């Protein structure tokens, strides 16, 4: 049995390594500097945990094979080995905590450094089961909102009509269009329950929490249309709460914004 068990443990170890090495099941495309940095941290973590995994499972299989009960074999009477304990604790502690510290770099860029100059603010308001996207318009200011004014078609985010800042606000449904290469500051809100705005190609997600406005910064570097998913359970339509991230050339973005204004005017 020892032989077969060792073989099984090595087989699942190999299978796991192959699974993670296969291209079919790898990370989606990455379209931002931060996403590439997260991927690099992921790759580093994969290598370190991979070594630990293969080492531990390899030894487990090896000991199972080598120390199975055979006639005449004698068990070693040892109660432990403090140098080994301390060394393994110190090594693992240093490696894992260093890894955590390294990973904090990109976290700081995304969440702890202020809004870069020239950022474009966009407000996202989640609701069951759609994303309302609002641009501040030429004045760069969002109009005040009030929940009493929500109207699914006429006023989806409840802009207060007598606030001049709101007059030029532009609203889109389920499409977040952004100009390529420009820093974006999302302000995430929710009307009803928790949602999570998940942009796989940017490697970021952030819960939207009713009663809070949570900032999320990114800079997309590659044009294209990418999917946005909801990642926080929000009710029976959670699985179909799909949005699009349109990364456009600056000209195309202005044209898109103009279309939204024209549509709203109709």
């Amino acid at each position: 049995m020892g032989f077969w068990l060792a073989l099984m443990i090595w087989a699942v170890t190999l299978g796991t390594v192959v699974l993670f090495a296969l291209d079919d099941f790898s990370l989606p495309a990455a379209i931002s500097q931060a996403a590439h940095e997260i991927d690099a941290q992921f790759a580093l973590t994969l290598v370190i945990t991979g070594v630990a995994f293969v080492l531990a499972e390899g030894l487990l299989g090896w000991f199972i094979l080598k120390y199975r009960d055979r006639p005449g074999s004698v068990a070693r009477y040892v109660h432990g080995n403090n140098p080994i304990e301390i060394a393994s604790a110190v090594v693992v502690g240093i490696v894992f905590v260093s890894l955590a510290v390294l990973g904090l770099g990109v976290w700081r860029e995304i969440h702890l450094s202020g809004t870069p100059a020239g950022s474009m603010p966009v407000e996202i308001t989640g609701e069951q089961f759609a994303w309302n996207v609002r641009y501040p318009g030429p004045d760069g200011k969002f109009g005040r909102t009030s929940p009493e004014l929500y109207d699914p078609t006429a006023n989806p985010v409840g802009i207060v009509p007598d606030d001049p800042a709101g007059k030029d606000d532009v609203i889109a449904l389920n499409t977040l269009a952004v100009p390529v290469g420009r820093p974006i500051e999302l302000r995430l809100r929710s009307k009803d329950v928790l949602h999570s705005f998940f942009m796989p190609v940017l490697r970021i997600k952030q819960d939207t929490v009713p009663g809070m406005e949570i900032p999320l910064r990114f800079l997309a570097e590659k044009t294209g249309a990418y999917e946005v998913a909801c990642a926080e359970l929000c009710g029976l339509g959670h699985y179909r709460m799909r949005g699009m991230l349109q990364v456009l050339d600056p000209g195309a973005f202005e044209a898109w914004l103009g279309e939204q204004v024209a549509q709203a005017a109709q």
Partner: protein
Amino acid sequence: MSVAHHHPAVHEAPKSFITRWIFSKDHKVIGIQYWWLAFVAVFVGMALSLLMRLQLAFPSHQWPFLANIFKTGMAGGVMAPEFYLALVTMHGTIMVFFVLTTAPQGGFGNFALPLQIGARDMAFPTLNMLSFWVTLVGFVVLIAAFFVEGGAPLGGWTGYPPLSALGTIAGPGQGMGMNLWIISIAIFCVGSLLGALNFLATTLGMRTHGMSLLRMPLTCWAWFTTAVLALLSFPVLFGAGVLLLLDRNAGTSFFLPGGLVVAGELIDHRGGSPILWQHLFWFFGHPEVYIAIIPGMGATSQILATFARKPIFGYRAMVGAIFAIGLLGFFVWGHHMFISGMSPYSSVVFSLLTLSIGVPSAIKTVNWLGTIWGGKIRFTCAMLFALGFVSLFVGGGLGGIFLGQPSIDLFLHDTYFVVGHFHLVMGVAAIFGMFAGTFYWFPKMFGRMMHEGLGKVHFVITLLGVYAIFMPMHALGVMGHPRRYYTGTNFEYLGSASGLHTLITWAAFITISAQVLFVINVFWSMFRGKRAAENPWEATTLEWTTPSPPPHENFPEDPVVHHGPYEYGVPGAARDYIMQTDPPAAMAAAKH
């Protein structure tokens, strides 16, 4: 220091069937009752997971035979999204509370702790009886949620508000079903608290002569630590549950902010915070992960030493590591909340503390490897599952190194990576601990041996099966597949997920089918198994010094302990193990 207890004589077991087997105060019967509860619950939980797997591999496929069983949830044979989420919620809740918290601690702990420390029963037998019956009521209330109007809740086992606080406006199961879910958990908290008090009092006050703390088997340390965690974490969940119930039914606003508009309706609440629930829930929820796994660590340590015929490697380090894991478990709850909207600065601290759990985890792994290194391993089924536990603990635990880093969690949070990770480590590894414990203590529990051949087939399929189920889930997560999705087919970027979903579903069907072998083994062995001797495994701890099954008050006379718990393979000894009750001379003779 050990505490002698003065018992006049061994009492006879109660004569009536009811007081002996139903409302029993005997820790052994209560332990077995907990074990049966988990046994029933785990099959209910697995059945729910099979239904989920059907939907995930064959989205919106029509299953006419299921329409007869689930008339609304699968009307016309096609699963409704809200029914899928009800399955998610109930599967998680049943498994976490009524399997992973019930069998390892309430089951094996109740059965074996007094035996292993040489006590005649738990410190408070009546309280012990009450803990079990309270827990059982909790289970019945939870299952009732399936049968009330609107069915079971759909908020997941984490029950995040506002979704969980709004009532039927948030979904069909969010009415009475959700109320029952909260009440069930509150009841469960009470049962677990009573149990935890009993474990602490018993461990500290009921040890027999010579059973100093550092002569306790590592299982006892594990149950003790688990009881400390339960004592400190369940009250928080209980409080949170009461507040949620008040928000739902009494118009309070602990978790509901002002200005919510749900399905076009303005909700009349103001001033609460949805994130407050998450802090309270995870302040309980992370220690809960360790409540599930620590008893499995104890059982694994005990069993590895027994069947490697070697002392446990680094006994004191193991005790320290269990405590360190338990203690750190209280300071890392924020790693469940990196993307919740909590201050991103606190994520930094939670991340560093989380990754430092790698240190005691590594100590445990090194010591388990050290225990079998140079051993003379006997591959009993108990040993196979304990070795499987080590493999799964490593394979599942390392996923935590990814998720504990907030930058990587930005991508992996709430994806299948998380599902794969916690299933391997707190689900399947913990269940391997239970299988190991069942094979190991079954002779003591029922007086008969389990069938080793059948057990080995069961083990092989289960080990390969769980890897085939849960490692591919990690891969789904790496692709960015969100969890709790009725189907991923609405998203183009999840196109290649369907192949993995099909693979996982087949693996789940095979693995769950193989559990029938275990059921057969349990029932067959209970009636037809070979009669168990007092010490069939040639083990050293006190439960093996008394008949199988033990008499009503465990020991004819109070045992007296002279040795540590794992004196295997002592050179020069008369046999390859020295029991804890062997006279001091046994060791002295061996060493000279």
